[in-house]
């Protein structure tokens, strides 16, 4: 009899060793040095903002990518995959080896990052919810882009931030997270909210409120795929693409939830936290929820203060946080990489193996049931540790460059260097805290 694993460990399995202290310190030091180097080499004119360093995708490739058949091929793939996993979710045995769990918590959530970096807005292309709303519109003869009302643009990404929080709460706090009923409930609520929202506001709702689309769209800003002003497909340097992130209201909230939740995920593994929770077991959910919210709020507020402390007279001060928030995206990607790399590679392989047996009764429909996960990463902890630190430091470097480039466009010439110190310190703070958390667990 296999009992579902306890919430302390999500989907179980051994975790990574903590980063060795010298490596963590070297990483923090490198981040600090790099930040001041970028500041010191302060270029005076924005290199990525508004300068169209882009190349239009060759017509041959563009006609394939824009073809309806290409779009619908991926929509069908997404829908079939969703159907398969739903089958496992609804009809499969309620055990920790049910592939619906691994898919929901590992393949989709962590997989969004590498797929979006490589291919752009993958969630949008594969989203079963979007496909369902498109089919619904076809069936009723309506335009999917139009709902009963227009989406109020001053809401921006706020609904997405709330839905993302709902996801990370489910992933990190909910004690029933590995029980199938809990995942079914979450997905049912998610589907309802998405479909009702898109009926009310058109499919723009999905781009603003669907947590997976919002997450994927933001990570895709670091890919090379973009669209120009004439809405043609272009290939751009990731930094230029990042600079084109639409500075919508709620962007900072989304970024704060993504980073804060990953930091909370590390923090809750620390021995002192575990002991504290055990002593207060009766209020475990309340404490964890408050802590998760706290982490997100700390990230959001610290960034907000640092951004607003930047001297400026070209834009209103309160617009600054969302004009600078895009620069946290590379830090998030670097930290997600470091935190989840081995989990994704190893638990991901285990999930692919489980997908062949959706009802958890010994079937092997796609032939992967006999596959042995390759545990190379875990067997080489030094390589893993160095890769993690390089990922975090690289994410930090890209973030500082992006923030500097935007600041140079917004700040008056006399304040180019001094005006950014606050932002710089906050970003160094994030990176060093991230490294500390990877070292301390």
């Amino acid at each position, binding site marked *: 009899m296999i009992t579902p694993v306890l919430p302390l460990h999500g989907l179980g399995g051994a975790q990574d060793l903590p980063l060795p202290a010298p490596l963590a310190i070297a990483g923090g030091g490198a981040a600090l040095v790099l930040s001041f180097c970028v500041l010191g080499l302060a270029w005076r004119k924005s290199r990525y903002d508004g300068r169209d360093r882009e190349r239009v995708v060759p017509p041959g490739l563009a006609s394939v990518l824009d073809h309806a058949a290409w779009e619908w091929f991926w929509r069908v793939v997404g829908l079939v995959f969703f159907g398969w996993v739903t089958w496992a979710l609804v009809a499969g045995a309620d055990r920790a080896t049910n592939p619906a769990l691994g898919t929901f918590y590992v393949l989709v959530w962590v997989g969004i990052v590498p797929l979006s970096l490589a291919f752009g807005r993958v969630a949008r292309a594969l989203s079963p919810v979007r496909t369902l709303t498109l089919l619904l519109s076809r069936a009723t003869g309506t335009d999917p882009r139009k709902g009963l009302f227009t989406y109020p643009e001053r809401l921006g990404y706020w609904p997405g931030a709330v839905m993302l929080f709902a996801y990370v709460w489910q992933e990190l706090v909910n004690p029933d997270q590995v029980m199938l009923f809990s995942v079914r409930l979450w997905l049912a609520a998610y589907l309802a909210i998405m479909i009702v929202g898109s009926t009310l506001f058109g499919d723009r709702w999905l781009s603003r409120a669907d947590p997976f689309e919002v997450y994927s769209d933001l990570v895709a800003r670091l890919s090379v795929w973009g669209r120009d002003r004439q809405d043609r497909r272009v290939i751009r340097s990731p930094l230029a693409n990042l600079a084109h992130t639409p500075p919508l209201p709620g962007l900072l909230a989304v970024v704060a939830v993504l980073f804060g939740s990953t930091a909370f995920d590390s923090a809750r593994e620390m021995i002192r936290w575990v002991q504290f929770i055990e002593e207060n077991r009766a209020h475990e959910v309340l404490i964890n929820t408050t802590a998760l919210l706290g982490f997100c709020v700390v990230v959001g507020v610290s960034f907000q203060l640092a951004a607003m402390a930047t001297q400026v007279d070209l834009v209103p001060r309160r617009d600054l946080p969302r004009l600078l928030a895009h620069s946290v995206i590379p830090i998030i990607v670097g930290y997600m990489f470091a935190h989840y790399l081995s989990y994704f590679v190893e638990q991901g392989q285990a999930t692919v193996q489980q997908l062949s047996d959706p009802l958890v009764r010994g079937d092997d429909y796609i032939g992967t049931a006999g596959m042995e996960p390759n545990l190379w990463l875990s067997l080489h902890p030094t390589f893993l540790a160095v890769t993690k*630190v390089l990922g975090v430091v690289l994410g930090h470097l890209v973030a500082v460059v992006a923030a500097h480039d935007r600041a140079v466009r917004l700040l008056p010439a006399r304040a180019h260097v001094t005006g950014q110190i606050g932002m710089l310190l906050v970003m160094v703070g994030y990176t060093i805290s991230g490294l500390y958390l990877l070292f301390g667990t």
Partner: protein
Amino acid sequence: MHPRFARPLVVCAVAAMLLTGCGESGQDTEGASDSASATATTTPAESTSPPATSSAPAEPAGTTLQVTVKGDDLTPKAEQIKVDVGEEITLDITADREGEFHVHSTPEQTVPFGPGKTTATLKFGRPGVVDVEEHDSHKLLVKFEVR
């Protein structure tokens, strides 16, 4: 300095810093991880069964852990212990009830125990952090750091 040349220079400086940083930490883990691969692939399901079975070829000397279970109170309480890959870890459990420990290794293992004394052995085939929890009380017994 022109930004174009400065960036690669800075990246080299960073790489140098990191390499010095990891140079110190690198040596201790390499030996252990290479010898672990053989154990990991040949025994895909490392199940434990009391009484202990030991078939350890030339492995480091084992660790013994005294475990007591009194109702919902466990000793040790969320202790962190460093062990080697392949090391034999003996759990001497004295309990006043039935229960089981979930060992969150890859793959997962379970150590059932009953009232009285139980002995079990654990062995981890690869580096990582393995938590051992008691099923009914949801409490963390020990965190093994396997190197």
